[in-house]
């Protein structure tokens, strides 16, 4: 490999000879990645980290589904099953979801607002490595969980770790501590990155890009990071309290000393609910960038989309206790949270309407990114509807903590978030690597995963409605759940196959993919104005924009957007 100007300067920094004849060793390449503060490299590392743990958590889920395929199964012992669902949930939220969305934000935000990098590149690296450390600490529990007395064990407290199950009396050994500290450290990394991204968006936009002219992706990430600032704190605080209980003999959640188990639930869900909106807003961001390009129409109702996003953020801070309808709150409390939960569906519905409005009358291209986004629209709509069902408290009294809820949130997190993430990968992979992902393999990936997803998660609503609770390692035959569970498990096979195609696609396309050029999709935002992959400094000259679609203006000088905005 020849050395680029970038590599030469880095070689100089590293004290290596700068002559072009010297090629890099594997060590040099690795070192470059480890010490980088470049948002693009950090973004890609976040994404690779997230995808790696996605496979791990997917294996955990597959094991769970195998155990549940038939009643009274003995494939997994109870404790291991409980550890697996705890790790599956914790991994997917904190080691897959958060890294992926921060990875994309990291990579895309500076490029899309015409900046060189994030506001604080070293803080960026710090946040990344803190997140990595937290994740590895969580998985170290496999080895260190029980301390010196026995084999390691992963935490088995559920991803929301209800008290007092997490107290020293009921959770012996250290597996709970690995959960608490690992997630806490990751949370601090998230806060650091959120501060960074907000500062970048507010302070580093290129000339002419007012807040109402920046891409919706920037808006959605801005709001998402704002929510991170407000929502992660409660979790950090609750985890500090838990650590005080477990190590210093404090009584925050020690019911034997008058402490309150319900307080943990409040604190956790004050974090937990906004957290799921934190996860989904970037999904909305991807859809808001991809759908217009593949419908050949500007997004329908940009200001309304901004307003709806801000509304979602505010309202979602006030719905948390809909996870607690069964804890025994007063009727007024239950009613309040039912109403706030129903209200949050309104701005969300407006957004769905606007995406459809964008497609309406457009010239739609069904390339792989668009396929994933269309599926997202349908699946997110269904998820929203089951969510509204759950907000009707008396229904929730039956459906809470059952497989209906599990189906609902997998519709949101897999059907909506993961699908848009796949869309984003197919869409921006050419920008990051200079090569397109294969459309053929992409379609195999899409259809297999879609079928698997629906076989598993459409079906899963039914055992919930038939009374199957969550988090049980087995069930008796004859409750009416047997065949349904088998169907859910079968769907996993299709999903796994789809992922195999995806991984194969990525690996193949890295070496053999069609060259992409700057702007393979004929898109309109700033990242497509630079090379694929972009140079380290992103843009050769400072940029000036006059509208929301600067590249449209350049490509259509007689019909620029700024005449109409």
């Amino acid at each position, binding site marked *: 490999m020849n050395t680029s100007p970038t590599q030469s300067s880095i070689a100089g920094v590293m004290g290596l000879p700068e002559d072009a004849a010297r090629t890099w060793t594997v060590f040099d390449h690795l070192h470059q990645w480890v010490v980088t503060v470049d948002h693009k490299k950090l973004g890609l590392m976040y994404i690779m980290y997230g995808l790696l743990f996605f496979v791990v958590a997917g294996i955990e889920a597959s094991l769970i589904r195998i155990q549940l395929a038939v009643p009274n199964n003995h494939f997994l012992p109870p404790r291991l099953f409980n550890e697996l669902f705890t790790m599956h949930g914790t991994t997917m939220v904190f080691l897959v979801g958060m890294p992926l969305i921060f990875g994309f934000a990291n990579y895309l935000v500076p490029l899309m607002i015409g900046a060189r990098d994030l506001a604080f590149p070293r803080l960026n690296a710090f946040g990344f490595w803190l997140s990595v450390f937290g994740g590895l600490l969580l998985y170290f529990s496999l080895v260190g969980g029980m301390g010196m007395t026995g084999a390691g064990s992963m935490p088995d407290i559920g991803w929301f770790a209800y008290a007092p199950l997490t107290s020293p009396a009921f959770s012996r050994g250290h597996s709970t501590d690995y959960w608490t500290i690992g997630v806490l450290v990751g949370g601090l990394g998230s806060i650091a990155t959120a501060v960074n991204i907000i500062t970048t968006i507010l302070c580093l936009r290129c000339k002419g890009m007012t807040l109402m002219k920046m891409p919706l992706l920037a808006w959605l990430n801005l709001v998402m990071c704002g929510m991170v600032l407000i929502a992660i704190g409660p979790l950090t605080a609750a985890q500090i309290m838990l650590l005080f209980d477990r190590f210093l003999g404090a009584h925050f959640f020690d019911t034997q000393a008058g402490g309150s188990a319900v307080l943990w639930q409040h604190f956790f869900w004050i974090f937990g609910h906004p957290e799921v909106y934190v996860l989904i807003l970037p999904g909305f961001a991807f859809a808001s960038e991809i759908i217009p390009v593949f419908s050949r129409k500007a997004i329908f109702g940009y200001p309304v989309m901004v307003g709806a996003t801000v509304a979602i953020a505010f309202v979602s801070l006030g719905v948390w206790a809909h996870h607690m309808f069964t804890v025994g709150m007063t009727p007024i409390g239950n009613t309040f949270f039912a109403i706030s939960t129903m209200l949050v569906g309104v701005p969300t519905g407006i957004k769905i309407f606007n995406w459809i409005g964008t497609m309406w009358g457009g010239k739609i291209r069904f390339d792989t990114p668009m396929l994933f986004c269309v599926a997202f629209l349908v699946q997110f709509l269904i998820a929203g509807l089951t969510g509204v069902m759950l907000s009707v408290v008396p229904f929730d009294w039956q459906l809470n903590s059952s497989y209906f809820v599990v189906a609902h949130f997998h519709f949101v997190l897999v059907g909506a978030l993961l699908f848009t993430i796949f869309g984003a990968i197919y869409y921006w992979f050419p920008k990051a690597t200079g090569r397109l992902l294969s459309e053929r393999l992409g379609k195999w990936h899409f259809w297999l995963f879609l079928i698997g997803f629906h076989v598993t998660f459409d079906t899963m609503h039914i055992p919930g409605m038939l009374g199957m609770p969550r988090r049980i390692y087995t069930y008796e035959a004859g409750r009416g759940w047997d065949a349904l569970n088998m169907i859910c498990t079968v769907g996993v096979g299709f999903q796994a196959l789809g992922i195999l195609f995806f991984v194969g696609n990525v690996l193949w396309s890295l070496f053999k993919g069609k060259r992409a050029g700057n702007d393979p999709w004929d898109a309109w935002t700033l990242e497509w104005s630079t090379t694929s992959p972009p140079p380290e400094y992103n843009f050769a000259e*400072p940029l000036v924009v006059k509208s929301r679609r600067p590249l449209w203006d350049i490509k259509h000088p007689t019909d620029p957007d700024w005449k109409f905005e």
Partner: protein
Amino acid sequence: MSTVATTLTPESADWSQPSKGRTAMICLIIAESAIFSIFVVAYLYYIGKSASGPTPRQVLDLPILSSICLLSSSATITFAIRALISGDTGRFGFWWLATIVLGGYFLFETGREWHDLIYNKGLTIQTNLFGTTFYSLVGLHAFHVLVGLLALLIVMGFTFAGAVKREHAERCEVLALYWHFVDVVWIIVFTVVYIIGL
């Protein structure tokens, strides 16, 4: 390589955006406020719920002097910044040092109060819900004071070395913002622990 700049003419209007340091510090303050709020909520919720052990009224004395010191340090740090903006690094150093002394005294008094509570009054974090919430909330705040003091000390060190100049005023202002935040939190903690909770 972008073609955007060459095709579009730069606007003549100036393009100003907020300062990075200030924005980031405000974000950090928001995040920290979220954490503190939860400890305050826990404190308020558990008032009067201790099953046994000493009550606040039995063991707490109002930390008036140390509070005055801490809150005055917000004034001294403001004087310091103003001095630096006007270029008077000597006066800056004086007021900056005053801030550190006042903050340091606050921490010292907190330590003394805790020593008394633990060894003479029998209140630890384990004793009861009051002990748990008291040490956690006051301790969290004291920890933030400590971190702030360390940062102030680092700047003090640079000042003694003659390295702090007028152009660094903005950075010191960002640090002062953090310090003001710590003081506002103390007003809230004081009210919750020593007034409402008593």
